[in-house]
């Protein structure tokens, strides 16, 4: 191995190491904190918990309302994802494959809409939900998340659907598909990688979203995990150990989902449809 190659290898490794520690550093710190006995929390050294303890996890899981809040989070994220699909898939199909008047304007409007800073909408939405009488309910959170997930869903899926060759769509019509049939038999199977990616991203967005969930909820009846974790503060001290443990627990579902569906994001599924 000549020195040039070695240098390149070292530089690459260094960059990679920097990136990984930047991405994983906070998470590892969190993990260490979650496993440290209460007494060592504010001490350094020891860097590593000695001995590691599950006391914070036990405390979190046993805390009143934690399971309720976790269930809220699951409900909000799953429902948001389903709503985004139910409304977004037909819209994206129409924009991608039908002759829709003002197509460009609609797409541009969607993009503009998703560029509004979140904070600008908080107050109006808060007032709106008070008037509707659904403040402090999971539905308020679901509606808000869906409204923000939809432009992204429609925009991304439109692009995925456009990738599907027009001849396939024409062939399906000749073969006897209605629009629903084309969606079911041709578009959805071929856009599966896109659907999986969009679904995951929407789920993660909704799972992690804090600002709206914080504003629109008031009690454990409707709170989601990020809000609950932020409100963990104790009477006299901030329970860092419990916060860290809860954060770790909250991260697990998204990591599991990503690993589960990663296999489904198969690229090149459309290969062989046309010429090639």
């Amino acid at each position, binding site marked *: 191995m000549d020195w040039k190659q070695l240098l390149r290898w070292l530089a690459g490794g260094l960059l990679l190491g920097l990136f990984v520690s930047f991405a994983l550093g906070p998470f590892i710190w969190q993990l260490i904190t979650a496993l440290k006995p209460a007494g060592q929390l504010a001490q350094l050294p020891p860097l590593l918990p000695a001995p590691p303890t599950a006391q914070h996890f036990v405390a979190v899981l046993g805390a009143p309302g934690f399971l309720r809040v976790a269930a809220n989070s699951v409900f909000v994220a799953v429902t948001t994802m389903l709503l985004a699909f139910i409304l977004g898939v037909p819209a994206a199909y129409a924009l991608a494959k039908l002759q829709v008047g003002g197509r460009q304007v609609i797409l541009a409007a969607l993009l503009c809409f998703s560029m509004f800073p979140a904070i600008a909408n908080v107050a109006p939405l808060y007032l709106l939900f008070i008037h509707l009488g659904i403040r402090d309910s999971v539905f308020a959170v679901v509606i808000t998340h869906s409204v923000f997930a939809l432009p992204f869903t429609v925009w991304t899926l439109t692009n995925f659907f456009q990738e599907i060759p027009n001849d396939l769509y024409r062939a399906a019509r000749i*073969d006897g598909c209605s629009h629903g049939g084309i969606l079911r038999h041709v578009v959805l199977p071929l856009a599966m990688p896109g659907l999986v990616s969009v679904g995951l991203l929407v789920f993660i967005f909704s799972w992690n979203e804090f600002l709206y969930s914080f504003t629109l909820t008031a009690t454990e009846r409707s709170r989601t995990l990020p809000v609950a974790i932020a409100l963990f503060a104790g009477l006299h001290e901030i329970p860092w150990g419990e916060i860290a443990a809860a954060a770790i627990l909250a991260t697990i579902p998204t990591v599991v989902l990503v690993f589960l569906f990663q296999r489904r994001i198969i690229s090149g599924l459309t290969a062989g*449809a046309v010429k090639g």
Partner: protein
Amino acid sequence: MDLDITNLSKQFKDQMAVQIPSLTIRQGEFFTFVGPSGSGKSTILNLIAGLEQPSTGLLRLGERLLNDLPPHKRDVAFVFQSYALYPHLTVSQNLAFPLELAHIPRETIRHRVQEVSSSLGIATLVDKRPAQLSGGERQRVALGRAIIRHPHLFLFDEPLSNLDAPLRAQMRKELRQLHQRLNTTFIYVTHDQEEALSLSDRIAVMQAGRIQQCDSPRAVYGQPANRFVASFFGSPPMNFFPAELQASPEGTFVQLAGRRLHIGELSPLSPKTMAVTVGIRPEDVRIRRESASEGWPMRISHLELHGGQTYLELSIEGLPLTAVERADAGYRPGEEVRATVGVERLHLFDAQTGARLTLKASGQ
């Protein structure tokens, strides 16, 4: 069942894509629409298939009016240039797809898939997906998906243009055989004049959305209706020269490149002279060595060898002329030769309109 087209037109924004006053495609015919890209030939196919709605006009298949029927109720099958196979389905699933949508019993479907795949020589491929197939195999599957429905009309949109030359020649032959075997109407669209000539019973030559000529391959090649049709067919293409048609008591003459050719008896031409374009097919030009005394003296500027034939690039009075000779005739660039053309081989076109001129011999 004949396909009757009446007053068909399709307008895209401010452009008339297709305009056909009247056309009947007969039961069992191999009918080809040929023309350059943008001539409206694919649009016609889409209109027949129901993938697009006509701006005006009626489409009738036998007694049935097609206009208001959705594509799958028209009894037509479509073979796409891109094959348009469903990439997520296997070959047999691709073949079965239209039948499943038509709610045909499972057992019948299985039987037909078997029958079609073995008749097309793809029986060993039924469990593969399109991505695992070669271009020719994909083309066969696409054909199979059309055949399996037993349609009344087959529509082909440039089905061979993605294949390489040897495969294309073979598929051409197979298409012809398939047509004979099925005895169903084939409507075929291509931009390839050779393909049109070799496959079709009848050809409609399209330009700018209109049919320029609709006739047998022999007729569109031998008696082109206008200059466009004449220039579209033939390789190398027809030679064109400006000339003058002259009527005199001695008969009708063409004044062409310094020579006056007697082309017929008296004709009722009026006025007495007329500007024309003379068309000469390269294979109609006879080349002789300089020692001959007849014909136009010319010099060979360039030779192009095409296997058994040589294309000779010549010029008359600065105008290029292409001739075809046997390759073993041994001509060389720079050689002086003489060229003759039988007057009966000349094609005359109105210089203004481009329409074919036919002179009636006055004696008859």
